[in-house]
């Protein structure tokens, strides 16, 4: 299935919006982009590598001329792309449970959006407006978001320990090594294939 590459899932969603509503949504995104505390939930969920929302005005679909006809549509469209770890169900469940208010602020401007709670109609809606990925690439497909963050912490700790321990005598080194182990132990582990069924 091309929506999935090892531990990462590529979701594409497109929803129609009445044009006057897109200005309200742009204001919300502006606030979300400039007030970092509003992004805390996304960061704390910690299973999204990258995500984006893109508003396309009804007159802004790329037009290249030639044989292409200009679009003549009434709605603006909201595109959502996400690169996350886990299954589709886990993702939507987590979104619904943790981010219901935030998601409602974003998608309530889309036609027929039922709200993030209860989860069943929310899943039905997302399933309806999702379109499939035809090719999906990840440079580190075996690694989850937490693996990546943990790996950078281990790298930083190792670099620091390597610098600090250069020139130490054996006993001093052994004590510093234990401190290094205590620091990195929570972030150790190996990446690998996802469990069967995910």
């Amino acid at each position: 299935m091309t929506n999935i590459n090892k531990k990462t899932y590529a979701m594409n969603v497109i929803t129609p919006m009445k044009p006057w509503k897109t200005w309200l949504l742009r204001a919300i995104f502006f606030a979300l982009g400039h007030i970092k505390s509003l992004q805390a939930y996304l960061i704390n969920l910690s299973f999204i590598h990258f995500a984006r929302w893109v508003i396309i005005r009804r007159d802004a679909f790329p037009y290249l001329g030639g044989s292409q006809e200009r679009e003549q549509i009434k709605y603006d469209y909201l595109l959502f792309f996400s690169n996350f770890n886990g299954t589709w169900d886990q993702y939507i469940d987590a979104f619904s449970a943790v981010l219901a208010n935030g998601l409602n602020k974003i998608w309530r401007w889309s036609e027929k959006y039922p709200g993030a709670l209860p989860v069943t109609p929310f899943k039905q809606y997302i399933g309806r407006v999702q379109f499939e990925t035809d090719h999906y690439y990840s440079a580190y497909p075996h690694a989850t978001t937490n693996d990546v963050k943990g790996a950078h912490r281990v790298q930083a700790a190792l670099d620091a320990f390597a610098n600090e321990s250069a020139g130490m005598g054996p006993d001093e080194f052994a004590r510093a090594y234990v401190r290094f182990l205590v620091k990195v132990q929570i972030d150790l582990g190996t990446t690998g294939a996802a469990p069967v069924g995910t």
Partner: protein
Amino acid sequence: MPNQSGSVYGLTILSPILDDPHAKVSHDLQIRMYLGGLKDERSPFAKVSSTHMARLAVLNDVVYVGMPACEEHLRSQYLVFESNFDGSLDEYLEKMAVEIPEDVDAVWGHCVGYPGTKSIGAFQAYMKKCQITTTFYFADVNDKTVNQTLRALQTQEAVGVFIENNQGKPAEELRQAFAAFLEALRAAPGPIPGSGLNSLGRLAAGMEGITRHE
């Protein structure tokens, strides 16, 4: 800038697909057939080494969500390209044109007005014409390059193996082993993007002395 989060750029491109009623196989299907033949492990994007994650999808039409919404349809189908990469857009597009011209031509060759990759300037201009500005972009880790992340994942695994192999060693022996470990880690070949990092066999190939003891 909405297209960027830290040092990571979020590119969104919608390229209108050719509509030829006389084509034996429709252009959208030809794109899908080509993309279907690419394996994730040998994705051409692995050669564009600044790519964290990228996808290609054919958008056949917009979705009718039911009454009281209006039903409407697009006049073109679009090839959607979503990419998350390090560096500037111009550099990235140039890398695509130089590193994977056959794949880019094979896919975008089915799109309206596509100029090919021979003229890098024309290719960049075409892609920018099809670009849609991202409204809100989120990158969980937005201050590390692809190479830094791959190296860090390699280090994470190697450190775990080193610790396991050197439990209970006397101080001087541990110190010498650590020095050798650092040297081996620094000399190890960089991980290959897109290939996965979990194989200790890969580590063994480039990092003598830090393979897991059985």
